[in-house]
């Protein structure tokens, strides 16, 4: 059964390993990485499986800095390239990610977040939300950001992220966390070969006499040219808005809407059940893409719901985007744990109940 190409299969797998297996099946041609907990299993899995995939480049670089620049080279040469790391390693990559968006290179970046700031902790966190969705490096740019909430989505989003990054020629990030990377769940692994090969006529594969030379660069020294490039990028980001994805659970009649992504959305799903058992009309909106952000979906709910509660494993980052979407029409509260602590459904419920009390709007 193992590695049988052309068929999908069901397995019990760790998030990191499932993601690594998915990358093979999604036609990844080059992976560059550097060990860091809690995502080292990605490189370990790829290295162990390498003999079954002789055409795939798998390289442990001397640093995340070198690794992401190798991704730049491989992607620029037209390969479907990928890198994975955790928070401190992702920080090291930011300069190159800025270069890659400017040079319009597609690639998959995986951040299995851990608690920070600093060396922090190896426990799960969502502390890199700002870095992931607001650019992260210098200049005006965005990554496409997908936030999985299950091991299955660690698999599925590898395909989605490659597809989107190649469609828009922009790096895409899977923003996971240590818990998703480490936990084991049943997954359906899609058959290999379902994602068509990247068409990259712009790539540096050797200048054929039939075409002009291809140049991959982010240098546009004349301000007029640089502004033009910026306008191209901004137009692309407008186009990308249509790729927005989110999920709503019991929001139709919800007076209080929880907003949470990734692992916290699963915790909040449980909170919704607990609240509903107590007769509280609570729902959940889970952004699946963090960039583009489901601004309109939240704005729409601001018409029916009376209050929002954003729950994150950080000091309050996505809540700023929720507030922008709600635009002052409803109160937006925040509940978060930091430094690798995971909130329980019950502690979220306590906050929900206090909001409900203040509202006096939820029938007992």
């Amino acid at each position, binding site marked *: 059964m193992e590695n049988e190409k052309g068929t999908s299969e069901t397995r019990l797998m760790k998030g990191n390993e499932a993601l690594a297996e998915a990358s093979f099946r999604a036609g990844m*041609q*080059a992976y*560059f990485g550097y060990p860091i907990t809690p995502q080292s299993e990605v490189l370990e899995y790829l290295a162990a499986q390498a003999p079954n995939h002789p055409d795939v*480049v798998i*390289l442990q*670089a*001397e*640093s995340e*800095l*070198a*690794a992401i*620049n*190798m*991704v*730049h*080279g*491989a*992607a*620029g*040469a*037209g*390969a479907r*390239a990928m890198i994975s790391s955790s928070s401190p390693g992702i920080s090291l990559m930011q*300069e*190159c990610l800025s*270069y890659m968006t400017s*040079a319009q290179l597609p690639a998959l970046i995986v951040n299995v977040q851990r608690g920070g700031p600093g060396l922090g902790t190896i426990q799960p966190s969502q502390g890199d939300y700002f870095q992931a969705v607001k650019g992260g490096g210098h200049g005006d740019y965005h990554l496409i950001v997908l936030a999985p909430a299950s091991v299955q989505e660690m698999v599925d989003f590898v395909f989605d992220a490659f597809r989107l990054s190649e469609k828009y020629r922009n790096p895409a990030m899977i923003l996971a966390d240590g818990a998703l990377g480490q936990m084991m769940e049943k997954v359906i692994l899609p058959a290999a070969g379902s994602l068509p090969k990247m068409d990259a006529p712009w*790539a*540096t*594969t*050797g*200048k*054929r*006499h039939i075409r002009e*030379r*291809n*140049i*991959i*660069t*982010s*240098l546009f020294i004349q301000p007029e040219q640089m502004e033009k490039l910026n306008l191209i990028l901004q137009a692309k980001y407008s186009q990308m808005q249509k790729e927005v994805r989110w999920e709503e659970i019991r929001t139709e009649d919800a007076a209080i809407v929880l907003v949470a992504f990734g692992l916290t959305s699963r915790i909040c799903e449980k909170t919704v059940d607990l609240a509903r058992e107590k007769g509280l009309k609570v729902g959940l909106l889970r952004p699946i893409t963090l960039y583009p952000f489901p601004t309109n979906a939240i704005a729409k709910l601001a018409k029916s719901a009376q209050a929002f509660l954003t729950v994150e494993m950080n000091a309050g980052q996505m809540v700023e985007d929720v507030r922008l979407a709600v635009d002052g029409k409803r109160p937006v509260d925040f509940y978060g744990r930091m430094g690798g602590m995971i909130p329980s459904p019950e502690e979220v419920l306590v906050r929900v109940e206090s909001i409900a009390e203040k509202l006096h709007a939820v029938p007992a």
Partner: protein
Amino acid sequence: MEPVANIGGMELVYKKPHTLTEIPTHYCPGCAHGVVHKILMEVVDEMGIQEETIGVAPVGCSVFAYNYMNIDMQEAAHGRASAVATGIKRVLPNKYVFSYQGDGDLAAIGTGETIHTVNRGENIMILFINNGIYGMTGGQMAPTSLLGMKTTTSPFGREASTMGNPLKITELIAQLPGAYFVTRHAVYNTAAVRKLKKAIEVSFKYQKLNKGTCFIEVVSNCPNGWKMTPVESNQWLEKNMLPFYPLGDIKVPKS
């Protein structure tokens, strides 16, 4: 050189390499970059490998190398050219890949990438232009600036106790098992240019053997950064740079 054309009774005895573009370079008069670009493209022409060669430009004065070389190229972040070249070569192992880097790029901010690229024995050519100064940013001290050398950030001369010693990275590189061919050249006179051209040519040929990295240092001038005329800068190079950075092969393949 064979006469290549006959124009109105006159023999054309010299022409620009086909693979060098028509774009005038932005280099200062007397700068070595232009000469190195030209002979690099001459070799590409003579070997007929324009379609199979991919270059990586650095951040430094030669950041626009891709404007002048009519081949596919990528522009790397400051110091990362050899990592970018690694990424290209790994996915296109049958192509000729080179990085072109200054001393600040290769021996300061990119030292880690340089050493590990060679240590893995990536089958690429690294062309290292050592002008002992940061040309692009206006003449600051480089890792290779000589002791006593006055730059904008060592205005009283480089002093070992506080600024460190000039780094002989090429000798260091030669220690690595991944290095296949390590050699030091210059372009301050025609004999030197010819020797460098030969070294570039054999390095491209070695790439097909998959035996490791070819590393070529070119000890260069920087008339502007050194605040000299082109002639003075070449004299200064011969008198001061070459005794510290002696020309010649440092590691040659065992036959």
